[in-house]
């Protein structure tokens, strides 16, 4: 699914919060901050989150 820039920003925020609170990362990385790890995850498409899109009428 192609994400909009708003969705990316939102996912980035939510995922980095999870990682920061102790969630396991889905990727192997040497990044040292939760935000960077989350960004890496999104780039590789391995985020366990997805946006709810409004159903088209």
């Amino acid at each position, binding site marked *: 699914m192609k994400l909009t820039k*708003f969705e990316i*920003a*939102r996912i980035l925020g*939510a995922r980095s919060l999870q990682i920061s609170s102790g969630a396991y990362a889905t990727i192997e990385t040497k990044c040292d901050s939760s935000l960077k790890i989350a960004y890496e995850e999104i780039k590789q498409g*391995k985020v*366990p*989150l997805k*946006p*709810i899109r409004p159903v088209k009428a």
Partner: protein
Amino acid sequence: MDMEALKQKIEGLDIPQSLKDELFEKLSKEKDLTEEMVDEIIDEVVNAYRKALVEPYEAVGIVAAQSIGEPGTQMSLPYEEKIIIKEGEFIKPVEIGKLVDEMIERFGFEKIGNSEVCDLPIDIYALSLDQDEKVHWKRIISCIRHKHNGKLIKIKTKSGREITATPYHSFVIRKDNKIIPVKGSELKIGDRIPVVKHIPANCVEAINISDYVSGNYVVDNINNKIAPKINGKSIPNNIKLDYDFGYFIGIYLAEGSVTKYFVSISNVDELILNKIRAFADKLGLNYGEYDNNNGFAESHDIRIYSSTLAEFLSNFGTSSNTKKIAEFVFGANKEFVRGLIRGYFDGDGNVNADRKVIRVTSNSKELIDGIAILLARFNIFSIKTKTKNQFVLIIPHRYAKKFHEEINFSVEKKKSELERLVSSLNDDKTYDSIDMIPSIGDALTKLGEKVDYPKVILKKFERKQKIGRATLQRHLRRIEELAVKKGVNILALKEYWLLKKAVESDVIWDEIVKIEEISCDKKYVYDISVEGLETFTTFDGVLTHNTMRTFHYAGVAEINVTLGLPRMIEIVDARKEPSTPIMTIYLKEEYKDNREKAEEIAKEIESLTLGSIAESISIDLWTQSIKVELDENRLADRGLTIDDVIEAIKKKLKVKIDVDGTTLYLKIKTPSIKALRKRIPKIKNIQLKGIPGIERVLVKKEGGEYVLYTQGSNLREVFKIDGVDTTRTITNNIIEIQEVLGIEAARNAIINEMRNTLEQQGLEVDIRHLMLVADIMTADGEVKPIGRHGVAGEKGSVLARAAFEETVKHLYAAAERGDVDKLKGVIENVIVGKPIYLGTGCVELTIDREYEEGKNMEE
């Protein structure tokens, strides 16, 4: 067609040469034209040209627009600008704002447009320049003030004079040997504006000291004494303004200071000191002498003990920064002024024969300005400059001789230096970059040719279009001599008198060296209207011009239009009626090219009430009725008869009408003064002709057709008039457009009005913004204002409405009804502290069930 015949045909036409040339060039290139075709083309061209022609006095172009911010008719000076006036025998400089405010307070005002105008019932005179280039005292007819919040322009001339005015203020310049007015904003550096050189003055011979001191003094009129109430020496009350008194004041201006009880003057020159002693003796006052050497140099102080004299002298300022010329001096006789100037120059002035200047320096600008004006009494022109923190007055060497004759010095050293300066002057070298006469045209050449004057000289000045006054005088004198020799009668030549007039003029055409824009912080700007050429003089000696007169003329093609921010607010507020309703009425094909037909329609549209056409409407006590006097000629002028009037009245009011010639008596059932009086306004407003609400109609030629502009708007009725092009005619009343033409038209009107308003202010706003506003305002099928009573007040969300205006009212009402807020909008979410539904705020996340943890890792 034959070229020659074509050329002749075109030459014979009644059109400008440039058009003829163009026409010939175009036609001569076409080869296959028959004679008929050529005739047809020519006819067409001539017709088009005639159509575009404007008759004299016909209004052209757009209506002179006037916004609340910057009316086209505001031509004024700011409060602080001083002008020279004469009241009785006294000449004095006053701040124009003070004068006008005072007069308006005393005599009230009448509102004309944006201006408050006060016609003066008393005689006050202003110094005015006439077409003969002489300065006269002219009566001030009226005082005007109006609001201004734009820029002002500040003009500085070569001789150091300054004037500040609104850009619309009009100045006069000399052009083609005539004095003509020009707008301030059109002046440019290098133009020459007039500055007075000579002030005609009546002479005040004596003054009463009591007029110039506070009330703490007792005046003894029999013995002509004035003395302090509580002990102190008396001095003569009525004091003659003679040379000695002037000289004393001059010395005071240069070297003196006052305290409450004594006047102190310090100087080293024995001659000056003796004069002071003599003056004190004359008044019968004691004085003490002190040697003072704690300052920069040794000096000698004389203290004259008199609190009366001290207070009187404080009219001239008390310290070197505040020194000034007291008002009465401007009207004082010449001897007194002569003494004053000599005293002042003896004290502060200096001469340098090598550098050929006489100069005086002071810390007070007001004093320097005053001295410059006083010097003008002796036809001596001076230049003002400024050093770091001192103001300098320089008398150019060409006036040194005059200064020597009229004023001179008493102090030996200065006197001999001045004599050295005067004797070193060469009459032939007369170049003066300031006193130039501009725009002499070919007058000198024409005159010179008559007497075979050297052509080189004549051509030089015709090319330069300016000539020093003294130079011109010299040449004129030679021409006169030549004329006598050759027996040519130059007195009969108009050019001779033109130049003679220029040489003898009372003004100096001073070159502008600097023009700058400054902002204005005062509420009002001011103007006065003067008899004659409408010019008046500021304290700095600059002559300016006033054009308020044109404002009073009836029928000048001007309609008041609200523009700028106020108009913008009007549009957005969806007012029922704009503050200045205006219609632009276009005419149908068969009417639009004919001025007479256009005027006929204008007459049909312009509303005419009984009040405006009746000679008088009054209560007749004898017959207990309302008397309406009519003028048959005026009625006929507008195509009405007395019967028409009677009918119109009967339609509106239940009255019995007795007719007596051209006078009508309207009788009501139970007459009483109160009842009659109540009806008068009603009667005045009875519509006789035209369309109600349209006060004025202007016919203008625009883009080759006649267009009517109206003050007042009534779209529905105007559409009914035959000849009005309903497809193009518009009004600026948006609500009216909605009612007559519908909501879509109103939407377009909103967009157009807003765009025009913004464009006139030089603002470029993308039309989509305006369309959005117009859409929101008209979305419900009627024009709604943006604000409490419109768009903002009808929002769906309680919190959004409460956040805008009338918070409590909305919350109470919502609580009472049990309203629910869905928190959909931005404002509501900001209030409750949630993210707003925009951008990242409208993304909702969930766990991606399809994504299995570790699934990809194994691969």
